[in-house]
């Protein structure tokens, strides 16, 4: 990469022997620092990633076959942690709830930002104001957003039942019933997260070449057809990436069920991550918690792999 470091003052190399020694030493020094400097600059990255990312990842795998109480050295227990998980009646429920949350979040939370973005880009005026408004919920810290919605969802005095009561609807139990709790969580999560996706879609929409629209219009395509045949195909890759990211994120949902419902009512909102948290930090069973973490990681990795393969074949079509 770097050029051979011949100090320029040594170029008129007519000087006698005593001076000739100096360039040599400088050369060796420079050669040394050429190896030391990159290592020094990489040190923070290697240390921080090593201690707080790479090592914990490996350790999770190891820990999933161990039992530890943080005081005595860990003991190997083979597959017993995984057996504990399978014997736990809550596991099936947690997996199902997580899948339901992810599915509902896709159903509600995926098309909505796209719709908003298309609408906003077509309207043209007031774009700056709309962008700020749309992103405002994302700026609210998630915990505050969740506490806020808990207050709105209150069945007796909450805003939602009051408003709906004015038009003769409800009162709805929202978080208090096993039938509606999960949907209520998804609605809150969609409110809290949609803004970021809208901004990304708006940027993607702006990158669609206008000539394509003009050509389609000359061919007599209606607005809807242009949207379907020009805009969406052009945004295919970003849509697929966003979908994958959303699935990965919603699979790890924690704050909503933890703060809003603590998994209830009747365990209807216990999610996989909440179960991991309970194993580790309520039950002190770090081994089983690690086993569940590793299983979750494996599922997410497989999902991503299948997904990336699919998108590659679609992308080249």
């Amino acid at each position, binding site marked *: *990469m770097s*050029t051979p470091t011949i100090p320029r003052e040594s170029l008129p190399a007519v000087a006698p022997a005593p001076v000739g020694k100096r360039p040599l030493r400088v050369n060796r020094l420079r050669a040394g*620092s050429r190896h030391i*400097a990159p290592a020094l*600059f990489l*040190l*923070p*990255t290697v240390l*921080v*990633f090593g201690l*707080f*990312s*790479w*090592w914990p*990842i490996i*350790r*999770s795998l190891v*820990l999933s076959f161990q039992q*530890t109480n943080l005081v005595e050295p860990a003991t190997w227990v083979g597959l017993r942690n995984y057996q504990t998980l399978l014997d736990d009646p809550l596991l099936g429920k947690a997996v199902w709830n997580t899948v339901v949350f992810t599915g509902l979040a896709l159903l509600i939370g995926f098309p909505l930002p796209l719709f908003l973005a298309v*609408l906003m880009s077509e*309207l043209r005026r*007031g774009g700056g104001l709309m962008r*700020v*408004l749309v992103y*405002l*919920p994302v*700026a*609210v*810290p998630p*915990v*505050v*957003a*969740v*506490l*806020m919605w*808990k*207050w*709105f969802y209150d069945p007796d*005095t909450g*805003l939602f039942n*009051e408003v709906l009561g004015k038009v003769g609807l409800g009162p709805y139990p929202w978080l208090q019933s096993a039938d509606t709790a999960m949907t209520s969580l998804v609605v809150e999560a969609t*409110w809290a997260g949609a803004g*970021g996706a809208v*901004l990304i879609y*708006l*940027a993607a929409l702006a*990158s669609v070449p206008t000539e394509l629209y*003009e050509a389609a*219009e000359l061919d007599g395509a209606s607005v809807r057809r242009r949207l379907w045949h020009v805009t969406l195909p052009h945004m295919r890759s*970003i849509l697929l990436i*966003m979908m994958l990211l959303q699935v*990965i994120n919603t699979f790890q949902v924690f704050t909503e069920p*933890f703060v809003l419902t603590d998994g209830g009512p009747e365990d209807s909102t216990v999610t996989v*991550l909440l179960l*991991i948290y309970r194993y580790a*930090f309520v039950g002190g069973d770090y081994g089983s*918690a690690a086993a569940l*973490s590793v299983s979750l990681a494996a599922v*997410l*990795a497989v999902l991503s792999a299948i997904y990336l393969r699919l998108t590659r074949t679609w992308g080249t079509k």
Partner: protein
Amino acid sequence: MSEAERRRPLTRIGLGTTQLLLIAALVIEGAGPIYWVFKGSISSTQESLRHPLALWPEEAHWSNISTAWTSLDLGRYLMNTVVLVGGSWFVQLFVAVTGAYALSVLRPFYGKYVYAAVLATLFLPGTVSMVSLYLTIQDLPLTGGSIANTPMAVWLPAGAHAFNVLLIKQFFDGIPKELLEAARLDGAGPWRILTRIVLPMSRPILAVVSLLAVMNAWKDFLWPMIAITDTDKQPLAVALPRLADTSDQSLLIAGMLIAIIPPVVVFLVFQRQIVRGIAFTGLK
């Protein structure tokens, strides 16, 4: 929609109506809840319960906010948050800049392996190693001590953020090599080249990474809750749900308002950069 279509009177009326409706909906959806928290924080609890739909309290209790500040000890939690956010920002930026500089400009032969290992963590969600990360901060390898319950437990793991390294490295890759070469020939060392040439040229990307780092650190909940169990040292986000169970509703809402204001103000001030940054990072 094309210009010709936009000029049709019916379309224009339709567009105008849609525009108004959309803005109204976005005001209610985006600003409404935040206003509602503000209103709730200056209303007495009884009034919030009696007239939940009133747009302004009969009697504004501005003192709620100062009462909440002292009785819930919000100043302390806010300070804790600021310390955690500031340190996380610094560590993230320091690690990403030094790492990206080594990988993009200095390029040691083992750089590609380190970069691959950094990028690999992008595909493994952080929550997956949460439990073992907790055990790691309890008994740190190398130094052997526990950093649990100290700001270090939040600062240092924040630095292991692969996306920052990726973004900054890609930006550094775009700096003309001739420029760095010229500086090297003039005898500038790696540190000088970084501080005098690379960093001043990288202000846009450093701003984006900084803003995202600060906003994300302010939002963090699960990890600070696990890493810092000492209630006196917890940030606002961790303290609020705990306070929610014990405090008077209007005081809690005042606490929520205090937690909302800083990130929302940061967003409103830097919204151009943030909006551009999100669009930019999302499209990468």
